């Protein structure tokens, strides 16, 4: 309906609606809100569910069948998947289901331990470096020394570290974790340092400083909580990287040694027989590696979106 501009169209605003300076959003804790927006993100939920399933099976999978991962049965070699052996058996008659989840334990352990070491070293070195930078001559020197170390380590490929470590250590889980940790934490340290540097000049940190808040309190109250998001996101990427690195090393024969099974050694073992049609030997471990990567990355992406306040409505 066409109307001419008249008093009907231009009315004074209802005084009750004139209040412009009002609360914009309902109150929820920041973590609760993050949780809710992770839940709303379908990809993140899918990732989380997959992850929980993989962890659950890693813990209980081997116990669900009457065969242990190393139990050989020479009358039962190279069986395809069946009601007996859900994932089939290998050339020594070992149950692949049991071995797959046994391998999951190794993979997840390496992933989590390596990520944990990354986290501790990265947060300490990155945090100290970022906090000290720009605090007088001493502060700058501390920052410089730490960052030089980081730069040097950053340039070394982990494969080289592994090979060098093999000279003095036996190949195995510990060696892999050490090798991954030596080079892995520098990425975390760089990210944390960058974040702390940025946060340090934030006005709320300046205000805290001005209000007499002590350095430890500034770190624990203002800097670390606001670094949490980026730490978590980074972890969801370092864990799968470590898992993949283990699989890769084991595949090359530089990793986990028999009788331990890992997804990497299992794919390696499968290579020789894939041409004779025993697809299940390669398929299950390779599929699990892919699934785990996918689960972590999907979850990480979801969290990243959820932790970005600008993405919230």
């Amino acid at each position, binding site marked *: 309906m066409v109307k001419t501009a008249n008093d009907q169209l231009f009315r004074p605003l209802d005084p009750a609606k004139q209040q*412009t300076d009002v609360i914009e959003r309902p*109150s929820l*804790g*920041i973590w609760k809100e993050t949780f809710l927006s992770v839940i709303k993100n379908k990809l993140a939920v899918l990732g989380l569910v997959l992850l929980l399933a993989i962890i659950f099976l890693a813990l209980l999978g081997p116990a669900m069948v009457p065969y242990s991962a190393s139990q050989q049965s020479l009358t039962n070699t190279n069986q395809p998947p069946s009601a007996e052996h859900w994932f089939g058996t290998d050339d020594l008659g070992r149950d692949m289901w049991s071995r797959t989840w046994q391998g999951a334990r190794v993979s997840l352990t390496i992933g989590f331990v390596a990520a944990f070491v990354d986290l501790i070293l990265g947060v300490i070195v990155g945090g100290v470096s970022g906090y000290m930078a720009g605090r007088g001559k001493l502060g700058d020197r501390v920052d410089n020394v730490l960052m030089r170390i980081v730069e040097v380590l950053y340039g070394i490929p982990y494969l080289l570290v592994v090979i060098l470590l093999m000279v003095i250590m036996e190949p195995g889980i510990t060696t892999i974790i050490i090798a991954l940790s030596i080079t892995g934490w520098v990425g975390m340290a760089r990210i944390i340092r960058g974040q702390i540097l940025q946060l340090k000049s934030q006005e709320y940190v300046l205000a805290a400083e001005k*209000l*007499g808040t002590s350095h430890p309190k500034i770190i624990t109250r203002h800097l670390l909580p606001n670094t949490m998001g980026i730490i978590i996101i980074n972890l969801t990427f370092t864990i799968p990287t470590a898992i993949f690195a283990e699989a890769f090393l084991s595949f090359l024969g530089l990793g986990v040694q028999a009788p331990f099974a890992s997804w990497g050694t299992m794919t390696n073992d499968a290579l020789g027989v894939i041409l004779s049609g025993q697809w299940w030997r390669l398929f299950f471990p390779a599929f699990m590696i892919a699934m785990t990567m996918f689960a972590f990355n999907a979850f990480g992406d979801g969290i990243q979106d959820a932790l970005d306040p600008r993405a919230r409505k």
Partner: protein
Amino acid sequence: MVERIEETGKAHTTENLVEIHSLKKYFNIKKDVTVKSVDDISISIRKGETFGLVGESGSGKSTLGKTVVGLQAPTSGEIIYNGQNVLQLDKETQRNVNKEMQIIFQDPHASLNPRMRVGDIIAEGIDAYKLFKGKDRTNRIYELLAQVGLRPEHAKRFPHEFSGGQRQRIGIARALAVEPKFIVADEPISALDVSIQAQVINLMEELKESEGLTYLFIAHDLGMVKHISDRIGVMYLGKMMELSNSDDMFRNPLHPYTQALLSAIPKANPRAVKRERIVLQGDPPSPTAPPSGCRFRTRCPHAMEICALQEPQWKEVEDEHWVACHLY
């Protein structure tokens, strides 16, 4: 080196709360590149006044404000608070002086920790100085909230639930918590909607009266400080260009830069005294390589030969009206 007559050198009947003598703050941004963000500035801020500080973006206003309250160490110069040289105090006295000088920031989104509840944000200073504990602390938080026009139940909420104006109120309450005497307000209203700006200004004016505060009020244009400032200082590329009381500055601006800034303010009544609009040409020069002589000369419509050769002196041209320009 040009001899400078210090504005602060003059005896005034009114007492100075803060004096800044030849303050310099340089930043080495690269190996051989120095930004002279604050370059030899001397001003005094009198007890109970609102000192308006204006200048374009990058002129060094925030740097001056942060340096005065001690968030940054000056490259050289002195800061006198209540007659004491704050850079030479023992730890204990310094902590007390620090408490009396507070700062309010421009960006209401960056100035509050997103992961803390408003109550804890306001109590930051209370906790640091252990002023109140337990029930008293809660009551004090409520009292402060009421003082800035917020309600007790807001204490439990998080900053992102508030509008810009409310966040600015929270920032003000946080500063008030330690009972400061001197507050640097670094563009406290620039990021707010026009409709909210007046509310925050009114609140600040009320608090100034009730708490006996002195303000260094920073803004990037003269219009914003006109009504609240007793005196106004105009900065350009790290230097003070003109300083006078607010009325004089608007009635009789002396420095060509101030004249240009004033002509840019839109008039409420277009038929009022006609002031020719002076358009500032180009952007300010890079602060890493300011022009020789007078820093404003590259954009000054009155630039003369001497302006490139010699830095103009800081002179009291009229009573209480200071200017740095070769025209006077």
